[in-house]
């Protein structure tokens, strides 16, 4: 059987070549070559449009950031607003894994094989933090997920893509960016910025989803092999992204970037502001479902 796979990230990212392809390889090996993958990337379907064809069975399996399907359900963002999704054991023991499984199956005919944190977020600036270390009118590249925190810290959020951000930093129309910690050096931010803010905050997530009908049509031993590869992926991801974050920060520092710190009063606020922002965005789409997830998480 060949599973039609779609991924939201380009092939050259390490999280694809090492983690996701590793998952595919594990499945193929565990099933004695019975299951193989036909690989498609964002050039086949744009990242934000991949969820729908997965539910329709156009694709069988999807490697994505769950927030990319926020337009279909706020749960995609809600995943990053609760702590359980960052720890494979806690995800199971809290009952959240089961809840997510049931939720996605019932509503969309898909379910998550693996959910894992990819690391935290950081501010990167052209100028160091000063004064009471808020953003004080700085123009910060952000996206919908970070608009809340940028505004709350007194900055002016500017929404633009990653590629445009580099150019805007270079010409000075941006003062900084909110950026995933695992991709700062990868985008050569050290060429256009000088300060990496401490502390980092707020976890983001990736996930592998599968079409439920396809999964159910497979023999039991193949299903088990896929589920096991999914759990293994979650465990491997923890180490992988920890190393990735350390590497990226090291390369930034090696290229002359320095740390700049939020004050002790502001620092603890970052996480809270981030989570509040995520919750607000999550509630825009299917709010009742999101409320149910958040309540379940708060009970833990």
């Amino acid at each position, binding site marked *: 059987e060949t599973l039609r796979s779609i991924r939201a990230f380009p092939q050259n990212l390490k999280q694809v070549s090492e983690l996701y392809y590793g998952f595919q390889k594990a499945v193929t090996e565990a099933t004695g070559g019975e299951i193989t993958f036909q690989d498609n990337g964002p050039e086949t379907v744009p990242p*934000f*449009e991949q969820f729908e064809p997965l539910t329709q069975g156009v694709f069988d399996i999807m490697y994505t950031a769950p927030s990319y399907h*926020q*337009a*279909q359900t706020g749960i995609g963002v809600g995943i990053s607003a609760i702590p359980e999704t960052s720890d494979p054991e806690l995800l199971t023991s809290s009952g959240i894994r089961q809840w997510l499984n049931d939720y996605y199956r019932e*509503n969309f005919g898909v379910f998550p094989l693996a959910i894992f944190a990819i690391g935290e977020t950081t501010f990167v600036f052209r100028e160091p933090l000063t004064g009471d270390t808020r953003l004080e*009118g700085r*123009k910060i590249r952000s*996206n*919908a997920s970070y*608009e809340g925190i940028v505004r709350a810290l007194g900055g*002016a*959020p*500017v*929404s633009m893509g990653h590629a445009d951000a580099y150019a805007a930093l270079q010409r000075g129309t941006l003062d900084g960016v909110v950026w995933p910690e695992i991709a700062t050096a990868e985008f050569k931010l050290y060429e256009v910025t000088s300060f990496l803010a401490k502390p980092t905050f707020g976890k983001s997530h990736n996930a592998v989803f599968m079409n439920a009908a396809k999964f159910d049509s497979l023999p039991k031993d193949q299903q088990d092999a896929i589920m096991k590869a999914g759990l293994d992926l979650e465990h491997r991801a923890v180490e992988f992204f920890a190393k990735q974050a350390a590497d990226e920060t090291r390369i930034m520092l090696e290229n002359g970037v320095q740390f700049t710190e939020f004050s002790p009063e502001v620092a603890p606020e970052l996480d809270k502001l981030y989570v509040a922002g995520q919750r607000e965005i999550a509630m*825009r*789409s*299917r709010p009742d479902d999101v409320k149910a997830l958040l309540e379940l998480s708060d009970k833990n």
Partner: protein
Amino acid sequence: MHFVNSALRFISKACAILAATAVGIAAVIYVAEVVARYGLNNPLNWSGDTGSYMLCVMVFLSLPLVTRQRGHIAVTMVLEALPQPLFRKVTRVLELVSATVLMIVAAFVLDLCIRQYHQGVLTTMANQIPRWWLTAVMTFGLVLSALNFIAPADEAPEDTVEF
């Protein structure tokens, strides 16, 4: 029949006026963005998304009138070499084929539109609206265009397509 045709013409023109309004709205919003960003140092952050939505309105609401005036671009070299009676017959066939294609595509769009309505799917921009609003506009424009292909053509205005 005459009444239906007149109604169709009236609705198509009204849609084109809405499309023209969308162009105007987009222009005003983009100027406002520049003023807000450089004049007030406080970017709006919704001009781009609104422009995108207006673009969709422009395209699908101008379509019925373009069709009514047979303003679609086609390679008509072979067609024009045909003798008059045959030319008219073939043109009619092509119009009916186009109408059929539009109807079929409209059915796909409507199918997705209904699904999006039931699932409450939003757009993927930062400033979100229900996605079925857009697919509904699409469906409407496509169906109206298909009907206009079946209806007799209107006189094209002086300035047709300039590209």
